[in-house]
């Protein structure tokens, strides 16, 4: 059991800085998800926590104890490698039993001949065998127990790697994209299993993923990384409802938040002729502001006369329970969609099916009180900018 604190962690490889001044506190029993695009430094950060990579600067603290100089073994962490890192000469069963067997013969495992025999004996000891069987059945590995990793598919190998970590009783679990190679059904199942295990053990988990569904469903806290810089560290709900900046707004949600540039005058934002009520407790400065609206906070109707943004339906994506509708705003509105809205459309999520068809004229109405306001220069959420600067995080334009 351990509380994890990271203080001003930086990491550079040669000239490239991969992690910029990262700080975070993770309480005992939290499920922290590190979320970010490929190359954002998630694995590097996790390896620094595990002690597999040394930070260039900063401290890693476990329970008020600075562990910078401790080996992974001393830190007592379990780690799932993104690349699995299985032992090729051992069977699946032996791979999973390896950490337990190793614990049992600490005193003599340097002696080559003896250790091999000892590993055999302890590998087949009863309580180890029981634990291995438990974890293997949870991960549906029973059928492969006697195979070597070379004869397994990617997904099966990944599950062996996960099993080898979950069988232990460490101070902290560190998982680097442990579900990335599995099919949707198994992934959903294992998500549940990991969350259950987290509840059961009450241990701290640090979980790396680039999958926002995993992040949103599993995390108690999410850290969003972009090029080694923290964009936001908050609960999943907070991140979804109050993204700290436009990068987070675009990164979370599928389809992502619609971002549009609105003009501000007299404390009011105006969008395509619509005057929006000023958000509570927020004073808008005259000029422009970036307005963000989630697809589910917009509605579309064929009723052209209604107040709202006029446009033409361009795309309809039926997801079954939901329908996504892409609307091209009327050019006469002179609406500035923010940089990379998908296909330059405003996306709307509507439950159930729609009777609209591509090419139809329509009106989009907004639930203005759900809107987020971002600084149009820095991209920082105006509602949470105080919070951001307090935390000493770098504001970043998305």
């Amino acid at each position, binding site marked *: 059991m351990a509380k994890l604190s990271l203080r001003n962690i930086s990491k550079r490889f040669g000239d490239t800085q991969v992690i910029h001044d990262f700080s975070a506190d993770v309480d005992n029993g939290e499920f922290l998800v590190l979320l970010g695009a490929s190359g954002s430094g998630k694995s590097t950060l996790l390896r620094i926590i595990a002690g597999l990579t040394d930070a260039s600067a900063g401290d890693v603290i476990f329970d008020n104890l600075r562990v910078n100089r401790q*080996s992974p*073994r001393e830190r007592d962490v379990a780690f799932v490698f993104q690349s699995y890192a299985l032992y090729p000469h051992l069977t699946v069963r032996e791979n999973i039993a390896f950490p337990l067997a*190793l614990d049992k013969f600490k005193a003599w495992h*340097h002696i080559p001949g003896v250790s091999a025999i000892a590993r055999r004996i302890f590998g087949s000891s009863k309580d180890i065998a029981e634990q291995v069987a438990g974890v293997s059945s949870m991960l549906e590995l029973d059928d492969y127990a006697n195979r070597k990793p070379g004869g397994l*598919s990617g997904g099966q190998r990944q599950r062996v790697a996960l099993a080898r970590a979950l069988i232990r009783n460490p101070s902290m679990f560190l998982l680097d994209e442990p579900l990335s*190679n599995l099919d949707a059904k198994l992934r959903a199942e294992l998500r549940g299993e990991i969350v259950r295990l987290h509840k059961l053990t009450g241990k701290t988990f640090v979980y790396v993923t680039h999958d926002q569904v995993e992040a949103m469903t599993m995390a108690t806290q999410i850290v969003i990384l972009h090029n080694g810089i923290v964009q936001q560290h908050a609960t999943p709900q907070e991140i979804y409802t109050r993204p700290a900046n436009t990068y987070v707004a675009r990164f979370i949600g599928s389809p992502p938040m619609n971002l549009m540039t609105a003009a501000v005058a007299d404390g009011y934002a105006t969008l395509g002729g619509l005057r929006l009520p000023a958000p509570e407790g927020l004073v808008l400065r005259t000029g422009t502001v970036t307005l963000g609206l989630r697809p589910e906070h917009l509605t579309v109707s064929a009723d052209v006369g209604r107040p709202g943004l006029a446009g033409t339906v361009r795309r309809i994506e039926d997801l079954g329970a939901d329908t996504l509708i892409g609307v091209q705003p009327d050019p006469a509105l002179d609406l500035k969609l923010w940089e990379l809205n998908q296909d330059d459309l405003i996306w709307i999520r509507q439950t159930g099916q729609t009777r609209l068809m591509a090419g139809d004229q329509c009106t989009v109405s907004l639930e203005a009180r759900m809107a987020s306001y971002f600084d149009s220069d820095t991209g920082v959420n105006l509602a949470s900018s105080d919070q951001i600067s307090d935390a000493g995080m770098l504001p970043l334009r998305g």
Partner: protein
Amino acid sequence: MTTKEAPPVLRTAAHKRRLKAPGTRNFSKPVRYLMLAALVLFSGFPLYWMLNTALSQDSELYGQAQGWWPHWERLADLGDVIGSVPIFKWLTNSMVIAGGTTLLSLIFAVLAGYALSRFKFHGKGAAGFLLFATQMLPEALLVVPIYALFASLGLLNGMGGLILANVAFTMPVSVWIIKGAIDAIPYEIEEAAAVDGCPRVTILSLVLTPLILPSIAAAAVINFFDGWNEFLLAKTFIAERDLWPASVGLASFIGQYLTSLNSVMAAALLFTLPALVFFLLVQRRIVSGLTAGSVKG
């Protein structure tokens, strides 16, 4: 890498297909056996001819052409000749020397190969290069200074000194073979072992050594044969007849005025067999592909 698991049947089929080297053609069974037979004949003939020569009449050897079949009736005579020298003692000595050389050299090579492969240290390039210093100079040139050195250290006339000298000559190649093998093993396997609680020595003995076994076996063959066949150092360092290895003993059959070819061949045959057995025991370990499936991609 597939994201979905293929059904078992498909996967094993794919697996088998992968095992076959691209471009290999399937020959029919008789043809394959014929080719094998040709190979066996080719590599086995020298051995057979040694036997044949050992068991032939002197008249055949020095006069008319040698016959195709051994004269088994000569076996007894030959036994007498061989029995007149301590051939089994010599073979045992050879075994000790070759075995000792192999063992010592492999231990050093695994440790040095690991260091050269995984650690960063000053003078690493130079160290790797200097290992070959012994290989750069002809052995004959080094014999004299080594002799002088061993004389002052009291290492002459003993197998220990000979093993040390042999190791100096054979180890560098092994180091590089093993360094290459360790280079090819993903570092993450070691990291995984470290996380699982292995100290470094254990990683080396428990995880890496099994993985580089093919290369260790290859290095063992090289070392063993070097130790087994070594002549110059043994001849120079060891004066006492009972301490000779078989290579030196074998040479003693070649007299200045008279060489009995049959006895030389008979002794040579005896000399070859243990090495052959060693190779047959070790060769099945020299297979590759042990790390398959460890890491992604």
